[in-house]
Each structure stands twice: as C-alpha cells, then as structure tokens.
C-alpha cells in the first residue's frame, strides 16, 4: 500500500500540470452538474411554494345563513383531499380585493354596494394539488345547495403542472448531456495520462509486474483526483450559490448529504474512468 501511495504521489509530482488539469476538469464537470442540481433544487422548492397556494374557491349564494355555511365547511373538511377550509365573508372578500388588486383600489374605494360574494376557500392536501383532483373537488362543491359558483384556477394549476413537467424534462435532457460530457472528459484525461505513461507500463510488464499491480496506482490516482475534483466542485457550486443568493434571488444550497454525495460521485467517476482507460490499455498491449 505504501508503494501505491508513493507511486500516486510521484504521479502528481512528475506531471503536476497534467494532474492539476485532470482535477480541474473533473471539478468543472461536476460543477456543471452542481449548477443544474442547484437549479433543480430551487425549482423544486419554488414549485413547493406555489403548490401551497393551490386552492378551490366556492362562492356562496347571497344571504346564506352562517350556520348552513359552518355545516357545509365541516362536511367539506371531511373530504380525503382537503387539508383545510376557510370561510371568507363578503366584507373580508372586499378587504382582500382592495389589498391584492392595488391597481383597481380606486374602483373598490368608490363602490356603493359590495359586489363581492362570500366564499369557502378550500386548501387541498399536498399530494392532491393537481388539475384532476382539484376539478373533482370543485365538482362536488358545486353540487352543494349553498354554493353559487366554483373556481379553482384551472389555468393556473395547469400551468403549474406544465412547469413541473418542463423542469423535469429540461433537467433530464441537460443532465444526460452533461453526464456524457463529464464521462468523456474524465475518460480522455485518464486515457492520456495512461498514454503518457505507456512506456513505463511496458517496462513494468517486462520486469514482471502483474496487471493488478500496474492498475492500482492509476485507480488510486483516479479516485484521489475525482475526490479532489468533487470537493472543488462543491466549493465552486457554493460560490455560485452565494453569489446568486446575495445579488439575485433567495436560493437554497445542497444539504450536507447531497454535497457528500457529490464528492463521492467525483471519486466514483475517477475510479470508473481509470478502470476503463487502464483496462483497455492493458488489454490492447
């Protein structure tokens, strides 16, 4: 083992440029992953935030007694899809409209009668926040006697669904492309390191080294470079995150577990890259 470590140290010492560049390449490949990972993490969070707000609103007939409303609310709260039900009176609706629609403040200011109906605002449970479920709940609410009309922001929910799909598709496509880039780059780097040392490998064989013995320092080198690259990539991603968080918009960073996984991925990529490159070289000569 000490020989393997020494050989690895020698590899770094003898070709510091090449080694540094391998590490940089792995780091940048993982950094690209990291950037897209961050985008994914933050879109996921944003979707979570938006999804929070999906609700079904049942406008009540004018003059419905409060008791009937309370009864209906209790019924609705018992639906499996429903998280909570809130009764918004006519006065509350007007206050809310004034607050939310500041462009039309004047209109609401000048009104002589309150044109807004009271409503029951129904929040769905997280797992049920999609178009089909919202439509189903809306249908059941519309059947109630006290309900005049039901709105559930169909378009909005549909848009949200599409955003989720788009994020998934873009993530998959771009992620796959960059996985390919990273693997090609790392493979190249190690392959060239092997080529660079092909004379050494040939001589090792001539003096009786086994393939395992020849392979070991390359594998260790690959793992070490990969780990180092992974650490660098996490650092770079953190820098990028910090910049964006400070100057552009509030964002989240990876959890410690995700970051550790990233570093481990670096080591794994390094190992696989060197295994493939060295293996091919040993078989071909």
């Amino acid at each position: 083992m000490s020989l393997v470590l020494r050989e690895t140290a020698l590899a770094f010492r003898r070709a510091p440029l090449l080694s540094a560049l391998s590490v940089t390449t792995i780091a940048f490949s993982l950094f690209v992953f990291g950037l897209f990972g961050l985008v994914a993490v933050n879109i996921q969070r944003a979707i979570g935030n938006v999804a929070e707000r999906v609700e079904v609103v049942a406008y009540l007939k004018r003059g419905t007694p409060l008791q009937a409303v309370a009864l209906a609310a209790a019924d609705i709260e018992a639906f499996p899809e429903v998280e909570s039900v809130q009764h918004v009176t006519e006065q509350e609706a007007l206050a809310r409209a004034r607050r939310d629609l500041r462009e039309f403040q004047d209109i609401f200011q000048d009104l002589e009668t309150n044109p807004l109906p009271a409503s029951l605002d129904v929040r769905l449970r997280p797992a049920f926040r999609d178009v089909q479920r919202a439509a189903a709940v809306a249908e059941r609410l519309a059947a109630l006697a006290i309900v005049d009309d039901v709105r559930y922001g169909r378009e909005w929910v549909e848009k949200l669904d599409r955003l989720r799909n788009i994020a998934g598709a873009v993530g998959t496509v771009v992620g796959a492309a960059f996985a390919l880039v990273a693997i090609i780059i790392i493979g190249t780097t190690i392959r060239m390191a092997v080529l660079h040392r092909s004379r050494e490998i040939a001589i090792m064989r001539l003096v009786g080294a086994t393939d395992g013995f020849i392979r070991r320092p390359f594998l260790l080198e690959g793992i070490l470079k990969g780990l180092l690259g992974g650490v660098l990539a996490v650092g770079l991603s953190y820098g990028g995150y910090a910049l964006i968080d400070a100057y552009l918009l509030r964002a989240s960073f990876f959890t410690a577990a995700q970051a550790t996984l990233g570093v481990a991925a670096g080591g794994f990529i390094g190992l696989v890259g060197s295994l493939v490159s060295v293996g091919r070289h040993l078989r071909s000569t």
Partner: protein
Amino acid sequence: MIKFTGVTKEYLKTGAALKQVSFHIARGQFAFLTGHSGAGKTTALRLIYLAERPTAGEVRVSGFSTARAGPREIPRLRRRLGIVFQDFQLLEDRTAEENVAFALEVTGARHTTIRPRVMRVLTQVGLAGKANQYPRELSGGEQQRVAIARARVNDPVVLLADEPTGNLDERATRGIFQLLKDINASGTAVLMATHDLDLVRSMDAHLIELQQGEVVYDSAEDAAGRQPVAP
C-alpha cells in the same frame, strides 16, 4: 532450464525470423547466442520471456511452457528472469537508483531491503557515485550498466542479455563480461546474445550460432568438432 523444440517464428511482413530452432541450455550454464545482424537473436530471447509466442514448436523455461502458460503466468516467469535489453529500456523520469529499485518494487519486495540491495548492485557495475542521476545525464555506456544492474538485482535464475556490451568500450566490456561470469559462478544461468567474437573466443562456454533464423552451429550438439561458420 531453457529448451527450444522445433521453434519457428514467422512475422507477417518479413516471413520467418526463426526456422525449426532447437537447442537446450542447462541449469547454471553460460551460453552465447551469436549471428549476424537480423539472424534472429533478439527474437529468440523475446520468445524466452514470452514477449512473443512461437508460430510452431515449444519453448520451455524453468518449468513454464509457451504451449501452456496463460497471461497470468507471464509476470511469474519474468520475475525469475533478469533481462538486459538491446535498447536499455530505462525510465527517463527516474534516477539510476529508482530505475533499479523499480524492478524490486514490482515484485512486492519488502521496502527496507530494497535500498541496500540496489546500492550493492550499482556498486558492482561501478555506478554507486551516479545513483541519483537521470538516464539523460548518463553516458550511453553508463545507461547500459544501469540496465544490467536492474536485471541483476532480482537474483534471477537465468539472466538474458541482448548485446550487453554493444555500447561499451573494451575496458568496460571486460568489466561487464567479468560481472556476467561472476553472476554465472554464483549459480545463475546466463544467455548472452552478442556479435563480439573476441568475447566468444575468450571463454569456453556453450555457443549457439544463428544464421537467417536457423541454428548453424551448437557446441553442445557438435562437440565432435565442426567449427562455427563465422570466422
């Protein structure tokens, strides 16, 4: 120890480099392999250390056979051999000492024993003072002596030397030759390819002469008296 039986080696481009070659070198023997340039000396040695496989026939070396040995056995065979290559084959980014130590490390030798053994053989070839120099900082003859030290450091059962004195002057040649005879005296068989006929004549050793891939003289077979073909 080393036994060629009807060995033929053909190359695509150049045809047969060895044709139906048979000879036997006994344990502990000192043997010369001579012949003109291109006669097949290097090819014969490469068959012994399994860098090539014969097209026909069999080569047996110290219990290994080209007919049976798989790829896993090649390193095991080579650790029992010491090889001096015609073109040195030194690593340019390692010092003389590291080049010699390399051959021991590869076999998994214990670390504490490596340095003393390396320095001892370097002293034997007269390079103790240049242990820390890189090949490009050594003269051609000095590089050849590093290569010899590397072949010797493993205490091989057979030492194969492909023109080990090709680049040496007369004095150094005598020194190396004496070294090879000393190695042989300690029980190691030596097979030396050379065209230095002065050397060949100076010693009463086993002599095999190749000509265009064929054995034209073998002192073990023709003990009766046929003379070598070359003058």
